[in-house]
């Protein structure tokens, strides 16, 4: 059995229905049996409990205490025997109630999780065998529930019949829909009801039948059990039949108390702004012109088309005549109304996805058959089916070679027809060249396929090809691997990203991934222009602005780590920022940023040996390290204020003259706003300008065979002359013989004077073709000294 179930589940999965769960419904009633009431008598000590003797199958009276009084001698009731664990978890033991023994518990439908009714004991159909397990007696034992996840394109599978049609086709077993049989009264429905469709686009088809002499009561237990299994609550026999038919056939339907519908007349039209309707859930709804409504003879709305019926015509316990409706509605209209009112029902879900407009007759008749059987109803003869604008069934040309090429199969046209026919796709073999309109199947190279009306999703050739593949089995298509003629590779940008990551990781930065959403004041708090794009529908205000810089996100990451006492952190991010632009899309560009926390505020005497302890200097070192790793020859920085950065500890980064970013430390005022302790080093660069050079291999330069000569020059330089400016002057003056300029010492002392420092450079000269003479070097030395003196007013120390 379980093996068969597994196979059946596999078939369903293979057909595209996800089996979420397979539930056996029987076992929850273990220990509960059918018992007969033998005797009832008052409890001597308690008014609200009576003593009941039951026969649990052995013919012996068994005393049970019971708090309900709805049963009489001879009734059959469910008895939970001693030792039973109830579906709700309660364990039944032998116990004494005010001095009287109770050997089990009589169960209400609620206790069996059948209905919400907890007031009375469930009275079972007479004729059940006393002592039989309840599940078995009700035919509910061994019921297996497949909980399926149905995709939006398969409204037909939102019913037992639809799933069965699919499964039967795959298993090659016959599939038949119910064919309801019942006697009809002489009186014609036309004398009792009428339907008028004023809005033909809203309602393609609308059918009614009329039932009389309806006795509304509880549903038979088999039906109640099935509804519960399907996740619905049994209410009364008419409502239950309505739901049952919907679950079985997929056609939602609605019942009116005929007495409350003047002349039995129903109309269908679009709503009018300002109209109101109290729906079945007793909520007053305001109707708009985009809703479809059902109106009575006086043009008053009595139902929201496809979504929910009205309270005024609701059937009640006293209803005896029922006007039964089965209709189909425009999908978009139902979707709009249901979304606007936040009202999702089993019916609206089905209508939104598409209900078979030709399923109405069967649904009406099936309802009647059940109502005749269960409620003793009589039915007026005939149906009224009004039609609005009904789309004719679609016909799609399906080419056999197209099927085979898309699915990698070698099916013949007739094999394709054999796959489609069982699921209701009617086929007619044709020839593509049109030479024969009705060829013998063997000559056909295509099919004209009539799409069944219950498959609104299927509209074009590939849709039918999917059905063919699905029913033939996707696995039958086999596997092969297409071989591209191109060579797989990363783009230059992707390569640059990886190189940058590698460099930053090597410099001790870990990768952060802040969300790109900011709070409205984040940009301003970071000292940046608050011009970020805003989101139309942010989840929360704190995430309502798109970042224009990586700064706020990384600062928040620093805050997070500080609050968890994680010590100084080094973090980087490679991510996109977005800026308003007068174009189809905002200006989106990628940046890389690195930050390091935990520095002191001190001003070191130089940027050399003490650099590691100062945020701004550390940032510059990381910049140069990154530049070296990426081979960025031509990277320069110049002291300059940058938004969000410490005004006197910031620099603009240029690459080959183009501004590509910034380096320095975060403005202490910004740090204060985020309660960040210590100073934070900061580096942010655009990715795009780096891509080309990262992907350009370095050019080999001949290494000279001749010795090099070093000269050291120390200049007393004003503080406002950048050290790089002096180096640049030296580089230019040194000419092609200069191999390198290295700032190896920075020195401040009172002797040098206020706002002055000594910058010591080591210059290495080398010629490719000769050994430099002392005269050569002396000449170069003097011209360097002269150049620095004239350009920067710096004197040799």
């Amino acid at each position: 059995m379980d093996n068969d179930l597994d196979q059946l589940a596999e078939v369903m999965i293979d057909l595209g229905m996800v089996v979420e769960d397979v539930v056996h419904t029987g076992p929850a009633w273990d220990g509960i049996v059918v018992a007969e009431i033998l005797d009832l008598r008052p409890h001597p000590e308690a008014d609200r409990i009576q003593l009941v003797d039951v026969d649990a199958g052995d013919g012996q009276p068994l005393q049970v205490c019971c708090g309900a009084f709805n049963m009489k001698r001879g009734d059959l009731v469910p008895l939970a025997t001693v030792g039973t664990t109830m579906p709700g978890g309660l364990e039944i033991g032998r116990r004494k109630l005010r001095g009287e023994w109770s050997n089990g518990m009589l169960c209400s439908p609620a206790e069996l999780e059948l209905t919400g009714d907890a007031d009375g004991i469930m009275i079972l159909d007479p004729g059940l065998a006393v002592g039989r397990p309840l599940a078995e007696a009700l035919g509910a034992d061994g019921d297996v529930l497949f909980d399926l996840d149905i995709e939006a394109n398969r409204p037909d599978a939102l019913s037992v019949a639809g799933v069965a049609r699919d499964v039967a086709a795959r298993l090659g077993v016959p599939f038949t829909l119910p064919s309801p049989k019942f006697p009809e009264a002489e009186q014609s429905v036309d004398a009792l009801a009428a339907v008028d469709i004023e809005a033909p686009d809203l309602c393609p088809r609308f059918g009614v039948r009329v039932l009389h002499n309806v006795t509304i009561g509880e549903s038979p237990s088999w039906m109640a059990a099935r509804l519960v299994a399907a996740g619905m609550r049994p209410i009364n026999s008419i409502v239950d039949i309505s739901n049952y038919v919907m679950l079985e056939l997929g056609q939602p339907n609605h019942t009116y108390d005929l007495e409350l519908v003047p002349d039995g007349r129903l109309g269908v039209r679009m709503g009018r702004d300002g109209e109101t309707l109290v729906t079945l859930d007793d909520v007053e709804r305001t109707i708009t012109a985009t809703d479809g409504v059902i109106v009575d003879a006086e043009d008053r709305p009595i139902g929201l088309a496809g979504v929910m019926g009205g309270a005024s015509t609701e059937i009640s316990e006293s209803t005896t005549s029922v006007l039964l409706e089965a209709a189909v509605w425009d999908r978009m209209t139902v979707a709009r109304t249901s979304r606007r009112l936040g009202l999702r029902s089993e019916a609206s879900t089905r209508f939104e996805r598409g209900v078979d407009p030709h399923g109405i007759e069967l649904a009406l008749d099936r309802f009647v058959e059940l109502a005749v059987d269960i409620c003793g109803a009589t039915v007026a003869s005939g149906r009224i089916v009004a039609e609005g604008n009904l789309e004719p069934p679609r016909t799609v040309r399906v080419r056999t070679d197209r099927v085979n090429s898309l699915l990698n199969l070698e099916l013949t046209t007739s094999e394709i027809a054999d796959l489609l026919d069982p699921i209701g796709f009617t086929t007619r073999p044709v020839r593509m060249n049109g030479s024969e309109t009705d060829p013998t199947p063997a000559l056909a190279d295509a099919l004209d396929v009539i799409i069944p009306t219950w498959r609104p999703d299927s509209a074009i050739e590939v849709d039918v090809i999917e059905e063919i593949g699905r029913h033939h089995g996707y696995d039958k298509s086999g596997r092969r691997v297409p071989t591209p003629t191109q060579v797989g590779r990363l783009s230059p940008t992707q390569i640059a990203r990886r190189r940058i990551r590698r460099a930053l990781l090597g410099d001790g930065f870990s990768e952060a991934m802040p969300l790109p959403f900011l709070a409205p004041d984040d940009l301003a708090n970071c000292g940046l222009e608050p011009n970020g794009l805003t989101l139309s529908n942010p989840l929360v205000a704190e995430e309502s602005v798109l970042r224009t810089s990586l700064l706020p996100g990384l600062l928040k990451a620093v805050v997070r780590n500080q609050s968890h006492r994680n010590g100084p952190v080094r973090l980087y991010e490679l991510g996109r920022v977005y800026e308003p632009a007068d174009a189809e899309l905002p200006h989106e560009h990628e940046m890389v940023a690195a930050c390091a926390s935990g520095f002191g505020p001190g001003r070191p005497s130089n940027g050399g040996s003490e650099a590691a302890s100062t945020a701004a200097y550390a940032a510059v070192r990381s910049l140069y390290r990154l530049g070296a790793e990426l081979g960025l020859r031509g990277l320069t920085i110049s002291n300059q204020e940058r938004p969000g950065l410490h005004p006197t500890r910031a620099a603009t980064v240029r690459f080959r003259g183009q501004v590509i970013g910034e380096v320095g430390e975060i403005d202490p005022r910004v740090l204060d706003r985020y309660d960040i302790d210590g100073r934070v080093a900061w580096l942010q660069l655009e990715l795009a300008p780096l891509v080309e050079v990262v992907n350009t291999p370095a050019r080999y330069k001949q290494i000279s065979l001749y010795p090099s000569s070093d000269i050291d020059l120390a200049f007393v330089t004003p503080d406002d002359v950048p050290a790089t400016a002096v180096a640049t002057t030296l580089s230019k003056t040194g000419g092609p013989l200069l191999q390198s300029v290295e700032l190896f010492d920075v020195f401040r002392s009172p002797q040098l004077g206020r706002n002055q420092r000594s910058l010591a450079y080591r210059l290495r000269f080398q010629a490719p073709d000769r050994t430099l003479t002392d005269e050569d070097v002396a000449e170069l030395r003097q011209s360097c000294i002269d150049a620095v003196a004239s350009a920067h007013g710096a004197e040799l120390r």
Partner: protein
Amino acid sequence: MIDQITRQADEAAAAVESAATLADLQQVESDQLGRSAPLTLSKRQLGSIPVENRKEAGRALNEARRRVESMLEDRRRTLADAERASRLVAERLDLTEVPPAVEAGHAHIVTQAWEELEDVFVGMGYEVAEGPEVETDWHNFDALNIPAGHPARDEFDTIYVNHGKAGSTLLRTHTSPVQIRAMQQSEPPIYIVAPGRVFRRDTADATHMPVFHQIEGLVIDKGISLADLAGTIEVFTERYFGPGFSSRLRPNHFPFTEPSAEFDIQRPDGSWLELGGCGMVHPDVLRAGGVNPEQWSGFAFGFGIDRLALMKFGVDDLRELFTNDVRFLRQF
């Protein structure tokens, strides 16, 4: 003469033995075997002794020299060993004093998974394509066969950006718009994957984030079939997850593919993992990208990167990926 040689050799031997350092020994060598050493002087005397004794004395002299040289070598080795031993003691370091905490950078696990996926597909001959994160409504929906009003739009929980006409600009809800951009930018054949960041209006919980990452694949070529899709997924599965992992396709529904499928990965223990969606590119999507569906066919697939990262490293809460807490980042 023989006696003199023997005596000189004995004295030399004693001097070698008494040398306490390598420096001493060098002095001893020069004293005993050098230019003015007694043995050297004795050798010079050889010419002046009688011929009949000369041969014997010569032999004795050579023997003595060899003896002293050999002792010197032994002594040198002994002293070198001793000096090395004492230097080693003096230089002893406890290497375990070095604290194990080293500030090395750690790549984010999403990036690790992302790059690994890129590498697998590059190895299969794919190029890696990209597209904007802020997208047009048309690229994200219409071009993918999800026109305005289509119920599927609701399922995406789209975040819209105030830019241009209301509702025209959004944060892409999937990487699929890159399919359209790739088709617009180049003629088929197309073999691309497109990893990227995507956005949904989801409240953060253990399995949802408003920001996450997907990778999309698109192949457009002549005669591409469902078999090419299934085979590609299978090869990817083996290469990314490793031997013993396999895949299956089962029918599903997406507006942008037809036929559509979900693909599952089977682990070596037999259990299944639902990984992503895929299918044959819908003719309307091909047309939106400017590709003639009668000439070309293709497949597409897509799945989440973050979940692969979580599984690989045993992380059970998606939110961890975005805390930027170094206690998390440093673990990987």
